């Protein structure tokens, strides 16, 4: 079934015209030897958090990579503030788009602050050295991710979860218009998971950027994302607000396991639970 419901955005063009700035992913496709990403589109306005969800191998990371401007789609385009991301020079793109994924641990240790400082690289231009403004943004990023107390520690000496926050801080230090995170909550405990996504949403609104994440955590996405894009085997089956996308029949089929969707009484958001046979 190929069901794309886009009730919130009747036509992407009117939306862009009304708001003026946003992320527009338009009919992007990709082709691997054994996998195909079918034409996928979605729109995300400034200040919102969108989540790409779906089973393993559904093409989530591929889609994220295409949205970042790094992977050239076979067809289609990605527009950020009206600019075609795939036709920007890498440095220009790096000033606007921050992409953070699972990273291998480093063999060379940096202090956390130095690690986060690498995020300013796209803005250094011809100069070999950071300016006071660069330093300010580094401190800001450390504060936002609550890493100021760990800033002098070596990156190899902090926990996996703290390292992930450092990666987020580095991405924030880029001051991008588009923040893309692949499984940002993978190693975090539930407190930090919620903390990070809530922070991301807050910052997206306060600092005027768009955040798009790929996540396995359906309930986290339900609670904290404004918009969901559900992929399965390279096709976008459904997109929209959590209520519309998280339907028990659809999810049970996609994830090949019986699930029920009810409501979280405290937040009013949908809640996905596994149904014992």
């Amino acid at each position, binding site marked *: 079934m190929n069901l794309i419901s886009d009730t919130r955005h009747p036509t992407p063009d009117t939306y862009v015209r009304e708001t003026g700035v946003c992320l527009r992913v338009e009919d992007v496709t990709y082709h691997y030897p054994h996998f195909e990403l079918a034409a996928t589109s979605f729109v995300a306005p400034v200040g919102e958090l969108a989540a790409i969800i779906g089973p393993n191998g559904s093409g989530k990371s591929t889609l994220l990579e295409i949205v970042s401007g*790094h992977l050239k789609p076979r067809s289609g385009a990605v527009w950020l503030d009206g600019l075609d991301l795939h036709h920007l020079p890498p440095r220009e793109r790096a000033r606007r788009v921050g992409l953070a994924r699972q990273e291998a641990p*480093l063999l*060379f240790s*940096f202090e956390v602050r130095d690690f986060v400082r*690498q995020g300013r690289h796209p803005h250094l231009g011809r100069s*070999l*050295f950071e300016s006071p403004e660069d330093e300010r943004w580094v401190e800001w990023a450390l504060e936002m991710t609550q890493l100021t107390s760990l*800033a002098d520690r070596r990156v190899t000496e902090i926990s996996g979860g703290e390292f992930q926050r450092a990666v987020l801080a580095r991405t924030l230090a880029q001051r991008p218009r588009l923040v893309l995170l692949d499984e940002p909550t993978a190693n975090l405990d539930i407190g930090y998971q919620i903390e990070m996504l809530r922070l991301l949403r807050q910052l997206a609104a306060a600092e005027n950027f768009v955040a798009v994440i790929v996540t396995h955590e359906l309930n986290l996405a339900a609670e904290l994302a404004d918009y969901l894009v559900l992929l399965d085997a390279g096709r976008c089956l459904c997109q929209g607000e959590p209520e519309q996308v998280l339907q028990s029949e659809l999810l049970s089929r996609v994830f090949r396991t019986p699930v029920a969707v009810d409501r979280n009484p405290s937040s009013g958001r949908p809640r996905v639970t596994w149904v014992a046979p």
Partner: protein
Amino acid sequence: MTLAVTRRDVLTLTLALVAGLLVVGLGALALGGVHLSLGEVWAGLRGTAAQPEASTIVREIRLPRILLAMLVGAALAVSGTALQALLRNPLADPYVLGISSGAALGAIIALYVGGRVAAASPLVAFAGALLTTAWVYLLGRRAGRLASYTLVLAGVITASFLSAVILFVLTLLSTRDVRGIAFWLMGDLSVVTDMQLRILLPVVALGILALYAFAKDLNVLLLGEEEAAHLGVNVARVQTAVFLLASLLTGVAVSVSGAIGYLGLLVPHLGRMVVGNDHRTLLPTAALGGAIVLTLSDTLARTVVAPAELPVGAVTAVAGAPVFIYLLRRAAG
């Protein structure tokens, strides 16, 4: 709080190390088979010494050799630092890409041929280094750009193969020639001409300065190729440039003085222990540190069993191995 590296930090550091280098240089001029006092060294440099031998020793024998040690030390240390960043591998050294084997093979073939070709062995060695660089570059490319993984493999395989060829050629040489080559293979600073210094100085200086322009790119490259690309680094261009510059530095150093070991591996790590991983301070530290360390090693090589000489590569190996072990223990603990 760790502040970002500033221009002032780099200048202060460089000046301090240059001062250290001058002190070591003066000491090296004074020590040797014949020990001179500092006064005699100074007079010897200016040509106003009471005994003309002092002047000869200082200006014609020791000074060129010490300058060679400084240039080769700097070249190898900087090359090692750059390759460790390029390959994201703390065990990389200037020879991991097979360049020293190529140069050695060139030198050995030149010596085997004998005559005028043998006299031009540094040139032939450099040609060997260039050819090996080109070969490893072509072999190490993947999807049109250098990948650190394939580059290391290409280098190791090439070095291995060339070592086998070297052994083969060695069996064809007479014992007298073999002794000469052994000295060269371990590193030998005793043979240096003015012409060599005149070429070496600008090449090494420009090579190091050119690499310094990539200092911040090297920092970001340490995060990973993908991560660096996402931060706006033109990874293909930086990798190619750094590879070529490091190969050039290694090539000229090895062509003139043989394959001095351990320097290109250890000096970068010693530098990291002092100034950290930021290449804006690490590169000058490695350059001047390498110059200092090799000058010291060479002085030891000249004085320990005077009037005979140890090959300087033996000194760096004997001194280097314990230092390496110490670094390993420190890293593990």
